[in-house]
C-alpha cells in the first residue's frame, strides 16, 4: 500500500497494512529545513519544498499545504504582523467592532493575499506526489475566521449582543471557506482540512456549536464534497467530547480528537467515523522518544480492533519539536 491507499483503507474501516501516520507538521517543516518560518509562510514554492523534505525525513503519510489561520482574514483586509520565527498575528482587524459583513468581499483565491501562494504549494505537492501520499489543504472554519476578522473578544461579545449581525459574519466566513477550499481542490489537494479551533467547547458552549456552527460546517463540507474532495476532515482541538457526536451530521468523514478526550470515549461517540489523534503536542518538544513511542503504541493498540484510525497529534506539533520524537511516532505505526 502507498500512503494514500493506506489512508483510504482507514477511512473505509478496511484493514491497512499499518496504521497511517499523520503528524500535524506545519511550521516544523520550515524549522527542519533551516528556513525562517516567516519566509515559509509567504512562499508557496518554499512551503512545498519544506513539506517534501519533511516527508523524506520522516516517511509519514501526509503533506500539508497549510500556512496559518490568518491567511483568510489577511485576504479579506486584515493587516498582519509577521515575525521571523513565529506565526503571524493580526495587527489590524478586517472588521471594526461596529462593522458589518456586507462591507467585506469574499476574497478571490487567485489574487488575494497569500492565497495564490498556498494554491501554488498545493499544485507543486500534488504534482510531485500524485496519488501516492495524501495532499491536504486547509481552510479556517467559520467560527475561527469570524474571530480572526473581529478579534476573539469582540467576536464573542458580538455573538451575545447582536446575534443577527454575528450570524451574517459567520455566513461570510463560510462563503470564504467554500471559495478558498474549492480553489485548493482545483489546485490539486485531495481534501482541504477545516481547522476551527475557535469552535472548541473551550471557547463556545455545545449549544452554540449545534445551533450556529453546525449549519455552516454542513454547507462548507457539502461544497467540498461536490467539488471532489476525497473526504471531509474536521480538526477542532481541545475538550471536544460534547461536540464530537455532531461531526457526522456536519459531513465530516475524519474527526480530530485532542488529548483531553480518551480514545475509548472518542470511539464510543463516533463509532463510524475515522478518528485522528491524540498525542499531546507539547510532548513532541518536552518528552523523550521512548515516551512518544509508548503513548503512540497505546493508541495504535486501542484502535487495533476497530480500525478507522490515523495516528496523529491532537493539535499542531510545535515548530520547535524534537525530530526524534516525530520519528518515534512514525516508527510506532511501523510496529517498532
Amino acid at each position, binding site marked *: 500500500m502507498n500512503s494514500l491507499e493506506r489512508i483510504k483503507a482507514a477511512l473505509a474501516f478496511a484493514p491497512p497494512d499499518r496504521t497511517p501516520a499523520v503528524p500535524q507538521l506545519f511550521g516544523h517543516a520550515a524549522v527542519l529545513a533551516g528556513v525562517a518560518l516567516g519566509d515559509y509562510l509567504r512562499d508557496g514554492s518554499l512551503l512545498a519544498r519544506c513539506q517534501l523534505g519533511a516527508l523524506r525525513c520522516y516517511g509519514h503519510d501526509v503533506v500539508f499545504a497549510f500556512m496559518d489561520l490568518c491567511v483568510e482574514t489577511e485576504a479579506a483586509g486584515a493587516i498582519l504582523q509577521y515575525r521571523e520565527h513565529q506565526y503571524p498575528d493580526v495587527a489590524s482587524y478586517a472588521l471594526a467592532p461596529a462593522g458589518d459583513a456586507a462591507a467585506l468581499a469574499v476574497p478571490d483565491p487567485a489574487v488575494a493575499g497569500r492565497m495564490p501562494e498556498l494554491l501554488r504549494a498545493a499544485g507543486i505537492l500534488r504534482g510531485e506526489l500524485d496519488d501516492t501520499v495524501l495532499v491536504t489543504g486547509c481552510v479556517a472554519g467559520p467560527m475561527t475566521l469570524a474571530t480572526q476578522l473581529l478579534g476573539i473578544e469582540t467576536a464573542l461579545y458580538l455573538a451575545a449582543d447582536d446575534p443577527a449581525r454575528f450570524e451574517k459574519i459567520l455566513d461570510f466566513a463560510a462563503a470564504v471557506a467554500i471559495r478558498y477550499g474549492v480553489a485548493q481542490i482545483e489546485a490539486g489537494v485531495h481534501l482541504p482540512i477545516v481547522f476551527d479551533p475557535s469552535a472548541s467547547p473551550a471557547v463556545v*458552549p455545545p449549544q452554540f456549536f449545534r445551533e450556529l456552527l453546525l449549519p455552516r460546517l454542513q454547507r462548507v463540507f457539502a461544497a467540498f464534497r461536490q467539488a471532489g474532495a476525497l473526504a471531509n476532515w474536521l480538526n477542532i482541538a481541545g475538550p471536544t467530547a460534547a461536540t464530537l457526536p455532531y461531526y457526522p451530521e456536519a459531513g465530516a468523514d475524519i474527526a480530530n480528537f485532542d488529548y483531553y478526550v480518551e480514545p475509548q470515549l472518542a470511539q464510543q461517540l463516533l463509532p463510524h467515523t475515522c478518528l485522528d489523534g491524540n498525542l499531546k503536542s*507539547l510532548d513532541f518538544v518536552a518528552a523523550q522518544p521512548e515516551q512518544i513511542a509508548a503513548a503512540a503504541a497505546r493508541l495504535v493498540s486501542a484502535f487495533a480492533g476497530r480500525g478507522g484510525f490515523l495516528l496523529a497529534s491532537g493539535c499542531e506539533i510545535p*515548530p520547535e519539536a524534537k525530530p526524534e520524537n516525530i520519528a518515534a511516532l512514525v516508527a510506532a505505526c511501523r510496529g517498532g
Partner: protein
Amino acid sequence: MNKLVASLLDGDHAAALAETQRLRGAGMAAERIVTEGLEAAMRRLDDKCTVESFNLLEIMLVGRAVSAVANELYPEGVPPEQGRATFVIATLEGDVHDLGKNIAKMVLIGKGYRVVDLGKDCPLATLANAAGREHARAVLVSGLITSVIPQVRQVKAALAECGLAGVAVVAGGAALKQSSAAALNVDYVAETAFDGARYLDQLVRGALS
C-alpha cells in the same frame, strides 16, 4: 443583592451596572458589594465551571459584567489597601495572545483581588520589577504557544534577582497547562482560571505554607 448576583451570572452587564448604582445610591458600601455581590457570583460560577464545561464565551460575559461593576465601584482601580492581595499578570515576551490572561484577570477581580496587568509580549525584567513595586503575592503568566516556555522557566530566577524569591509563580494557558509545575519551574500550573484562583485563595490564606 440577589438581583446583582443574578445579573452577573446572566452576563448582563447593563443590568448589573444599574443594580450596583441603585445599591450605592441606597448607601451600601463598595466593600459589601464586592464581598456579597461579585465574590458570591464568582463562587457560583466556579462551582458551575468544570474542566469540561468551562468555556470562554460564558466566562467573558460574566467577566464583562464584573468589570463594569468593579469600574463603577473603583473608577481608579481597586486601591491596594482594599484589595485582598495584589497579583501581577502578564503574557511573556514572544507571545502576543492575551485572552487567557484577560480571563484570569477578570476572575481574580471578581474575587476581590487587585490585579496589575502588564499586557502581552512582556519582558521578564518588567514582570519582576512590577512584582516588587506592587508588593505582589504572586505573578501569573499565561501562554498559548509552546515557544514561550523557556521564558516561563526563567521567571523565578528573574524574581530572585530582585530579591523576590518568595513570590509565587502561577502558569496557565493552552500551551503551559500541558506541562507540569516542575518542568516549568513554577509553583502551580492552573488548568483553568478558576483552578488558578483557588490556588491563589489558598496562598493568600496561608494554607500553602
